[in-house]
């Protein structure tokens, strides 16, 4: 990654949202809220169903345009970016859905290069193949490269889409529920991947999740979203308290600290 280090860009957070809100119908789904994502962070967005997590991620990637407020990348408003230009800076991995994708792993990862292609360019170039190879190596799925995506397990497919986002060579990765529907082994693999993406690949990561322990173990910062508003914004150690979590989910939790990071346990009594 070529992280921009000139003085004028380092003053700004990588991504900043100011007073943004999104209101597709009668109900305000997101905001108004402020949010800054700093370079090198792993920011988890947690909250109950319908809190607006996915909509917030879609706003942060530019897929949705906020009704009010403004988003900026290194201080430059989103609207000044061309679609592909923004896609070269921000990569999105939507929630895994059971759709049939009749392509090989390598082809899907290569599609991450789309924002780097010139208009009417038919064949990928050496730089594209290099980015694909690197992405497959980081996610550790080189042995799957010729397999059809449809034949893979859910965990493997999630890895393929993360690899495609890496091949996009964007400094900000936005992942929507990367561990949903995955078994514990694949959850662990994604959980170990996120710090690797930060440290080794120099990426900034924002992800939404329902798995509080996954957030606690992998995030450097957690934003709690409720009814579209930011209820709390803190490091995992401060966020994972019975008080905040009860306010967030209307459910009671117990917090244990087997190691450095807190682990949450849902209490089943009413």
């Amino acid at each position, binding site marked *: 990654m070529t992280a921009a280090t000139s003085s004028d860009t380092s003053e700004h957070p990588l991504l900043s949202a100011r007073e943004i809100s999104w209101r597709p119908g009668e109900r305000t789904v997101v905001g108004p809220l402020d949010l800054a994502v700093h370079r090198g962070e792993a920011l988890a967005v947690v909250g109950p169903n319908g809190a607006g997590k996915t909509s917030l991620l879609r706003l942060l*990637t530019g*897929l949705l345009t906020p009704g009010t407020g403004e988003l900026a990348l290194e201080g430059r408003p989103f609207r000044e970016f*061309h*679609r*592909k*230009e*923004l*896609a070269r800076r*921000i*990569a*999105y991995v*939507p929630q895994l*859905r059971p*759709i049939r*994708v*009749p*392509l*090989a792993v*390598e*082809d*899907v990862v290569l*599609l*991450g290069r*789309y*924002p780097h*292609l010139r208009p*009417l360019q*038919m*064949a*990928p170039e*050496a730089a594209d*193949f*290099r980015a*694909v*190879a690197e992405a497959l190596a980081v996610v550790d799925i080189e042995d799957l490269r010729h397999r059809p995506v449809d034949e893979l397990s859910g965990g493997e497919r999630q890895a393929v*889409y993360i690899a495609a986002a890496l091949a*996009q060579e964007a400094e900000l990765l936005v992942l929507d529920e990367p561990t949903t529907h995955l078994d514990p082994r694949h959850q662990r693999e994604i959980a170990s991947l996120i710090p690797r993406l930060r440290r080794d690949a120099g990426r900034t990561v924002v992800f939404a999740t329902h798995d509080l322990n996954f957030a606690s173990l992998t995030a450097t910062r957690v934003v709690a979203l409720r009814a579209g508003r930011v209820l709390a914004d803190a490091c995992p150690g401060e966020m994972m308290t019975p008080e905040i979590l009860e306010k967030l989910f209307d459910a009671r939790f117990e917090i244990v600290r087997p190691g450095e990071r807190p682990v949450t346990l849902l209490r089943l009594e009413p």
Partner: protein
Amino acid sequence: MASAARDRTTSRPGRTLVVLACLWLAVLVLAPLAGSTAVSPAEALEPGTTAATIVWQIRLPRVLLALLAGGALAVSGMGFQTLFRNSLAEPYTLGVAGGAALGAVLALHLTPHLVAGWLSSGAAPGSWEGLAGFGAVATASFAGALGATGLVVGLAVRRRGIETATLLLAGIAVSFSCSALILFIQYLSDSTQTFRMVRWMMGGLAVVGFREVLWLAPWVVAGAAVLLALRWDLNLLLTGEELAASRGVDLGRLRLAILGVTSLMVGAMVAVTGPIGFVGLMVPHMLRRWTGSDHLFLTPACLLGGGVFLALCDLAARTVMAPAELPVGVLTALLGGPFFLWLLLARRGDG
């Protein structure tokens, strides 16, 4: 990594393309020699003979038209199947055939004594030249096809572009309205007119000359070229619209481009041949099994394979009942029904 790129040209999709190109050329050379009476290559090359006239003036343009029309159907079927992410989509899904048929039926009703260039059976001589130098029927049909598509797109346009689900519903609505209007016009027409309307709607490649071929070729070649240039966009659509949009694809513009290109291609084709069914549904499916879904290979494969398929169907249509000819649209529909069932059952099987 460059070797991976080189592998592709010698890969199975690459080999399939070479085989299809050879088949296409073989059909072009051999199909004009076959028919109700077979002609030897020597006879065909002897100038001035009846055999040579049949081969060069009647059968060759017909085979060329079949190659172009089949290619147009398969390429646009491929485009629709990718756009709607639905293997049951076909070129006529959005009512382009209904609009074309309505235009043709209207022209046949309003011009009872005029002959459309290609439809001469049983009608009085004396032809009326339409706007494009074609018969009134072909011109009205082309206008109807474009009108129907324009209406569907207009109905489906939302503030943020075209929504696929609305597009499908609008297509069904426009198709039904066209069918109803066609029935209404048929009810008002006499039996000769009605027979010609029904015959037109069967679709066929009979009585064409090079003029029809020259008219259709640019639409088909340009349409296939545009879809080939959209290779990456179409491949991205296979992974989902949201992912495509997040990589910088302008979905509204992409949908409009696919729709515009396929409608022009299919509208131009239907104006000449009438609606020939099921080729656009069947051929892309058959070809995906050999070339895979990468549109770099699939687009030219559909252009070649659709043409070969329709030319062979037409060859069968003009030989099985010789000297009588079966309209090729009837034959493809006969093949299409069972294929459709097989597709539904096969989908359930691997689901």
